[in-house]
């Protein structure tokens, strides 16, 4: 992680046209090469803030700046698509072309790149996402959900954004599929240097993969810190109906025996337990 700031959010207020106040006053910075989770109850503002980060929604007051570009500036949206990508929860809401190739090429063509550059980007993005060239002419509709999701991520990657937001990447997926998509996102973070933001309800996934958590409640930032710091505060998290992973809750119930309150994995729990037991039995 570097200290290079990619996105600056300052006193962001947003309400929908029907008057619903979705974001009350949000300030946060997103840095290069972070792996972040936005968590919180439905209606807490997770998806709304994500849509403000990619310029899809504009603040009522306060501002969102991406590489110092205010999202409300004229013509900003066109520049933002190459900086922040947003992957929908349901790939079917995003995929609309009749071949995989056209789907991934859509964005680059839309910003007026020549066909040679478009082709280069499609192949590069598909390669990173494990979408094989042999299926380029197939219809996205007939792929498995996991592959459809990778195609939608490829179509975002083809714009070469540094920040990629993925809305509920594991919802409705089984364990193996969840690990597959999360390992893939981790790869984009570790090897390709992207900043990844996931919006999710799956706390074990958050514990296992992310390094920073932003917990939202009623349109405010409730907690913003390292994953470890955030899960160590179960009372605050309860305000947005989020429970830390089960193993963290077990550790917290045993804290009087010297088990740390910020355990995130079974292995960490095991190691801490053996140490604590050594102390009480001697």
């Amino acid at each position, binding site marked *: 992680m570097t200290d290079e700031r990619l996105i600056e959010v300052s006193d962001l207020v947003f309400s929908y046209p029907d008057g619903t106040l979705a974001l009350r006053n949000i300030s946060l910075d997103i840095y290069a090469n972070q792996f972040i989770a936005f968590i919180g109850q*439905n209606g807490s503002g997770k998806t709304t803030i994500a849509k403000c980060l990619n310029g899809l929604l504009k603040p009522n007051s306060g501002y969102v700046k991406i590489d110092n570009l205010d999202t409300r500036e004229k013509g900003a949206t066109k520049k933002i698509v190459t900086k922040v990508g947003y992957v929908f929860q349901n790939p079917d809401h995003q995929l609309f072309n009749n071949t995989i190739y056209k789907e991934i090429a859509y964005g680059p063509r839309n910003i007026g790149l020549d066909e040679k550059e478009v082709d280069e980007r499609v192949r590069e993005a598909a390669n990173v996402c494990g979408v094989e060239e042999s299926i380029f002419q197939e219809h996205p509709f007939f792929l498995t959900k996991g592959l459809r999701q990778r195609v939608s991520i490829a179509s975002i990657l083809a714009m070469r954004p540094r920040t990629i937001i993925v809305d509920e990447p594991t919802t409705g997926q089984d*364990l193996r599929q969840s690990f597959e998509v999360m390992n893939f996102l981790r790869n984009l973070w570790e090897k390709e240097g992207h900043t990844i933001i996931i919006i999710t309800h799956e706390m*074990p996934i958050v514990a296992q993969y992310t390094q920073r958590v932003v917990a939202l409640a009623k349109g405010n930032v409730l907690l913003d810190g390292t994953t470890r710091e955030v899960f160590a505060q179960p009372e605050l998290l309860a305000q947005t*109906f989020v429970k830390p992973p*089960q*193993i963290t809750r*077990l550790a917290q119930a045993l804290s009087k025996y010297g088990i740390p309150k910020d355990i995130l994995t079974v292995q960490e729990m*095991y190691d801490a337990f053996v140490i604590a*037991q050594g102390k*009480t039995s001697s």
Partner: protein
Amino acid sequence: MIAVSTQDLGWKYAGRNNFAIEHVNLEIEENTFTSIVGPNEHGKTTLVSCIKGLIPNSFNGVWRGKVEIFGKDTREISAQTLANEIGFVFADPEAQFTSMTVEEELVFGLENIGLPLNEIKDRLEWVTNITLVSDLLDKPPYEISGGQKQRVAIASVLAMKPRIIILDEPTSMLDPLGKDFIFDILTNLKKEQDLTIIVIEHNIEQVAPLSDQIILMYKGNIAKMAPPATFFEDSEFLYEQGINPPMATTFLDQLKRNKLYDGGLPVNLDDAIRAAESLLKPNGYRKGTS
């Protein structure tokens, strides 16, 4: 009495080369809670569709073996009887609604079968309490949240008083609060007399403590069928089949493998806390008991 049994059950969808499920033999005792787990596309929904009679009635394909509901072969009882005996709740509740208010939605089926007014009132009160929907009764079904819709869907199925209720991934599309509500409802359902519950669920941590038995479907077969206390033994095997035991259970299993714990495997957090605590209390570590 056995509520559901299958004997060498198999089903191949028309146009497919392989059987979606094959050689499935199981027995579900009445008034028990059974959860079905396993990776997607490994036969969970096909199995419950066979039990409900949606297969073969609404699908083309090749059927093998037999399903019995309370001792009767499903191919020898009418679709109407089968529909009365078994209620079915889908992952996506949207598809099921037709009325202008939640209350109308709930009484629609009851009026349809000609129940007297006082009986309708009693049932409405009963399902409303179990499924926690009393504050939703005068709302239009299309205006409530996904989690609330799922509660109403369960209520409308339950109102018909089926003896067996099947829920196919009732929480998979819900947020944590919505999920917790459904698990509260499942806990209430478990207390009902004369109700056999079958749930397909990925959330093992929350469903395991409620279960009398857990069935793992893998590649169209039953790979494991056991009460929760023994189901999670051999976590390596489960992990290979795409199943993660609850994290606290995995932890105690790891202690057990390393001979640091020799008790039973707890499947809920409170039991796990007690088990771990007994090892941590001064003098709690019983040396030589491994």
